[in-house]
């Protein structure tokens, strides 16, 4: 029977000696509203909703109808304030609760808030304190309801939330893909007792069982047996013990003969069985280990019996017994694996400790309908998995800074799967998992560290008019540098470590310090420049034969893709030689046969009937989009194929954003009747992809894009650039034809793929009939 939490486990003395750094811990308190608190046996989790004022870069087209002078830029860039919503979750030891409440009281400006939602066993105990300090009415919410609500929320909104724990594997944490449909699942909450909850839908769950043998049994019985008071210390003892000294094993009963009987001698026949028959002293470590095994095995066995009875294969474990403790995750994983013979894997959650607080918060925010939005983990403001784990970081633990944070941004757009994914459940955006590939991890962490100076410089340059930009840029450097350090030691901190997550973390950190678009000016300049050549490039195709034209178009597309400030090799060239041109870029390209070369198949296909509709995920601004992409899609449009250009919703590096693309397209349409007509007839559409990343996650795309793709009967997907076609989606299987093309502008990566820098990947794939027509 089981209930989580447990209220009265020893009283912690109140620690008021710490001072809290306001810009690091309770951030954005000024605008905070809707508080929720989850007070467990030893940890308090506080949640609040706040709005964040962000600087965002906006582009606005000049009115070009009046006059057209060569010297004027195409559009103007302005930085505006935008308000976005953010959820803050902070976890700290109960000892600091008073200090924290005082801090909140002092910094809370907003007075509209009247109520604080509370859950957890300690909610009663601290009720008066909270009401007195914050002058907020404590409104108690059911623990289990909050837990499930929180669980649904993180499973839906945080990719790589769930993981499998494998102690002896190369990477201890194996993160799971978010399943498009998270239900049904089983949640085993191991608090002082165990609750087994079956969750069938957002608001449909049932406590189907439980057990009284749980974390409280480990702690209580462990304290009696070993005279060790703290739960963490008991786990430490257990990790050092030998249970075989205390438990009676099969081989203790059968002697050496178990082998011939097909038995496994190391099976525990009777937990603590040796202490019943042997008259001797047992070590604390051994008893703690035996106890840990006894309890983990028992819970695992019951979990499996319930999972089987209810035909459930997704089984998540949580509660303080599990929370961030590799020792218990290991024994539970072991037990589940044993009892289901590997059919079910024990799943754990990165933000398991926050579930109650998240749920309580969501209960209080129901009027805002938070579930209608998509949310994203903010890597800049979140501390990551096990930031305060004693096993990993004893030094950090000893300091007063035992604060763990999670921040989630409300995304402006609702995100969904690309309908053309062959199998959304098995789709993994990232090509290389750096958590598992140590060599690649080393390289990329080094690479991002190396590039940091350049990024800082670029950020300052983008805000020349602001004197404090240098100071902010320095803060950004420190923050990102610290993130990279963390990831070096805990690659699993934010789920699977990938080139994408490293890039995204950098974008989040830049945004955090109000550098919304460091490349805005460069993009502007390059767009201006490229536009001037557009007509010339288009004209140059007219003399070519059909075959020649197709090849030149593809080559142009690839050459355009060389212009990428995200790649260090290229940004060095662009930095030193601003005149570096399209023709030079073409010369840099690898001659055919390319590293991956499906060009002949593509040409054969083009000789056939035109595609119905092509979806093109574009990459860089300037030459790439204007002189590479536009001529290419122009040819498609002429063939009779509709084109949808998908670009980023927000800025990332020098990638073209949706608002920039709108203006560019207008300008091109003014020059080129083909584009003009296509726009007018709606055969050319511009949509945003919902992301602000240099990479592409096809499982989290703007809902509008998904609708457009479906309505237009899209039968060709083109993905361009290293970030979207190599670092991500290289292995993505689509249910229609696809073209993935990129120039490898990184010699390490090129070598890994078996080529040299500026190698070309031209991957054209056609799904087999059976898969294509489901």
């Amino acid at each position, binding site marked *: 029977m089981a209930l989580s939490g*447990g209220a009265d486990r020893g009283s912690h003395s109140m620690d008021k000696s710490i001072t809290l750094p306001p810009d690091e811990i309770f951030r954005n308190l000024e605008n905070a509203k809707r508080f929720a608190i989850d007070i467990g046996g030893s940890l308090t989790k506080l949640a609040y909703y706040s709005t964040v004022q962000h600087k965002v870069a906006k582009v606005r087209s000049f009115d070009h109808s009046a006059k057209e002078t060569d010297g004027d830029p195409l559009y103007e860039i302005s930085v505006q304030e935008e308000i976005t919503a953010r959820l803050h979750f902070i976890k700290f030891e109960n000892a600091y609760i008073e200090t924290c409440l005082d801090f909140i009281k002092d910094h809370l400006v907003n007075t509209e808030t009247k109520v604080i939602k509370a859950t957890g066993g300690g909610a009663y105990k601290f009720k008066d304190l909270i009401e007195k300090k914050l002058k907020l009415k404590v409104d108690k919410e059911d623990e289990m309801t909050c837990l499930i609500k929180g669980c649904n929320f993180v499973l839906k909104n945080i990719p790589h939330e769930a993981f499998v724990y494998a102690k002896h594997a190369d990477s201890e944490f194996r993160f799971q893909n978010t399943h498009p449909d998270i239900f049904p699942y089983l949640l085993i909450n191991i608090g002082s*007792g165990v609750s087994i909850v079956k969750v069938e839908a957002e608001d449909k769950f049932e406590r189907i069982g439980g057990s009284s043998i749980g974390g409280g*049994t480990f702690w209580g019985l462990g304290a009696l047996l070993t005279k060790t008071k703290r739960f963490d210390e008991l786990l430490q003892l257990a990790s050092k013990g030998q249970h075989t000294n205390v438990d009676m094993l099969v081989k203790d009963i059968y002697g050496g003969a178990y082998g011939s009987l097909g038995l496994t001698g190391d099976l525990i026949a009777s937990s603590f*069985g040796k202490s019943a028959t042997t008259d001797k002293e047992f070590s604390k470590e051994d008893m703690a280990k035996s106890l840990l095994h006894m309890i983990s095995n028992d819970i695992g066995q019951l979990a499996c*019996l319930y999972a089987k009875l209810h035909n459930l294969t997704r089984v998540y474990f949580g509660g303080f017994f599990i929370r961030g403790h590799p020792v218990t995750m290991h024994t539970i994983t072991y037990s589940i694996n044993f009892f289901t013979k590997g059919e079910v894997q024990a799943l754990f959650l990165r933000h398991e400790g926050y579930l109650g607080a998240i749920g309580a918060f969501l209960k209080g925010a129901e009027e805002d309908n938070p579930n209608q939005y998509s949310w994203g983990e903010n890597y800049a403001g979140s501390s990551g998995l096990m930031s305060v784990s004693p096993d990993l970081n004893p030094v950090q633990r000893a300091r007063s800074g035992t604060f763990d944070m999670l921040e989630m941004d409300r995304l402006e757009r609702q995100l969904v799967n690309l309908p053309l994914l062959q199998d959304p459940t098995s789709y993994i955006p990232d090509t290389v998992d750096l958590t598992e590939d140590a060599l690649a991890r080393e390289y990329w962490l080094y690479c991002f560290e190396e590039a940091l100076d350049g990024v800082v410089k670029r950020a300052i340059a983008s805000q020349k008019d602001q004197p404090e930009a240098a100071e902010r840029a320095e803060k950004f450097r420190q923050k990102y540098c610290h993130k990279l350090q963390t990831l070096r030691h805990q690659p699993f901190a934010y789920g699977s470590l990938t080139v994408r997550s490293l890039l995204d973390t950098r974008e989040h950190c830049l945004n955090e310090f109000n550098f919304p678009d460091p490349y805005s000016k460069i993009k502007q300049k390059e767009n201006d420049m490229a536009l001037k050549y557009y007509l010339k490039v288009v004209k140059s195709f007219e003399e070519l034969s059909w075959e020649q034209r197709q090849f030149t178009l593809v080559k142009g597309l690839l050459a355009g893709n060389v212009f990428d400030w995200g790649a260090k090799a290229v940004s060095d060239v662009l930095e030193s030689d601003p005149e570096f041109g399209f023709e030079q870029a073409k010369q840099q390209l690898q001659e055919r046969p390319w590293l991956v070369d499906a060009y002949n198949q593509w040409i054969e296909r083009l000789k056939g009937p035109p595609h119905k509709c092509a979806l093109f995920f574009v990459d860089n601004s300037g030459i790439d989009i204007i002189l590479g992409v536009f001529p290419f899609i122009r040819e498609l449009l002429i063939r009779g194929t509709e084109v949808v250009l998908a670009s980023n919703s927000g800025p990332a590096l020098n990638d073209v954003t949706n608002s920039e693309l709108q203006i560019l397209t207008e300008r091109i349409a003014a020059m080129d009747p083909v584009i003009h007509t296509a726009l007018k007839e709606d055969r050319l559409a511009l949509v945003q992809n919902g992301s602000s990343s240099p990479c592409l996650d096809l499982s989290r795309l703007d809902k509008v894009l998904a609708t457009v793709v479906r309505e237009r009967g899209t039968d060709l997907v083109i993905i361009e650039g290293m970030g979207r076609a190599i670092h991500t989606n290289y292995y993505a299987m689509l249910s229609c034809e696809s073209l993935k093309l990129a120039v490898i502008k990184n010699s390490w990566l090129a070598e890994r793929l078996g080529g040299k820098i500026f190698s070309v990947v031209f991957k054209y794939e056609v799904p087999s009939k059976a898969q294509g027509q489901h």
Partner: protein
Amino acid sequence: MELNGFYCDGEGCAEEQEEEPTALKLLRSKTETSCSIIATPGADSAAAGGSVLQEQRMSKSTPAMLRLDSLKKNRPPFPWFGMDIGGTLVKLVYFEPKDITAEEEQEEVESLKSIRRYLTSHTAYGKTGIRDVHLELSDLTLWGRKGNLHFIRFPTHELPAFLQMGRDKHFSSLHTTLCATGGGAFKYEDDFLTMANLKLLKLDELDCLIKGVLYIDSVVSSGPPECYYFEHPTDPERCEQKAYNLENPYPLLLVNIGSGVSILAVYSKDNYKRVTGTSLGGGTFLGLCCLLTGCSTFEEALAMATEGESTRVDKLVKDIYGGDYERFGLPGWAVASSFGNMMCKEKRDSVSKEDLARATLVTITNNIGSITRMCALNEPLYGAALWNLDQAALYRAMIDQNIERVVFVGNFLRVNTLSMKLLAYALDYWSKGQLKALFLRHEGYFGAVGALLELQNPC
């Protein structure tokens, strides 16, 4: 001793993981073996495959008329023993023939006579051996002979002393087969040979267990009923022991609680399988009690448990919610966390040894009840061997083959009315009356009885 399902990793679990947990022995079917069960006393059925061994024995044996006579009737020679060597206790059953004629008496070899007299004239052997006189079955007919069945137990660690006695009494000169089951039959096989010159016939413990249960239930007709249950288990005022007729018991779960626990699903007398087990058994109760209270015997631990109060140790639902947790139908008296109050130092300091013993007993017993109940619910699934059964099929399967009876055996239940009532209560309450807990008087001796019956089939 029972094999349970718990498998544990030491430090190098990578290689351990590779070993199949064959100890589960799922779907082990009795139909695979050719031996038949002799459930009827006095039935002189011939044992196929046994003749060679018997001839060898005849050629070697001393020319005692009685023994020859025995062989002619396809009856094993005396003495008739069955042994179950568990992790904690050795269980020994001995058939004492009462129909010995004067002639037989005269010809009975001295060593045989000495064993018979020693065993039947004492009720305690050494410091720790005990004959459970109250369990003795008199006037039993086995293989054509009339006699009494005696039930003896002693701690497994006293086995060397037992072997010494066997040697002193020249047991080996009788050239008898000693049928033994339990893990110790394997572990101590060499010791039997070297210390007492005795060759063991090793038998599968689950086979023996089932045979023993069915045999004893079939031969007990007078006196206290072998099988019983508790009527009104949820009402302490009206709760009383009632006889139960185990005539047509299938399907049933047989839960053997020794040092560890084995749970078998039995579909007919020779169709059964081990479903699962748990390492939280009698050994855990005694082991934890020894560590927590300093006691050293099961009787002591049980006596303390009887005096104690577990609610001072356990955290109850009402301790957390002030009453019932209505939302999930949890009554306030239910245990939320076993030993949960012991997380708090003040409470650790205020509990007695008796409280701790009681809490240990309640924890172990309730857990067995809980796993048993889940097995009973799951069994149709195992039976159907379908993991991905759709819900409708699952429901039909459950209706078709619901297990309603659970028979608890094993020495954990010896003189342990507390646990029996707790099991009866827990099963009745949590299954809403769907499951009935049944108990057997000879709780821990069935393996040994089953081994004795194998004397007939020395194959």
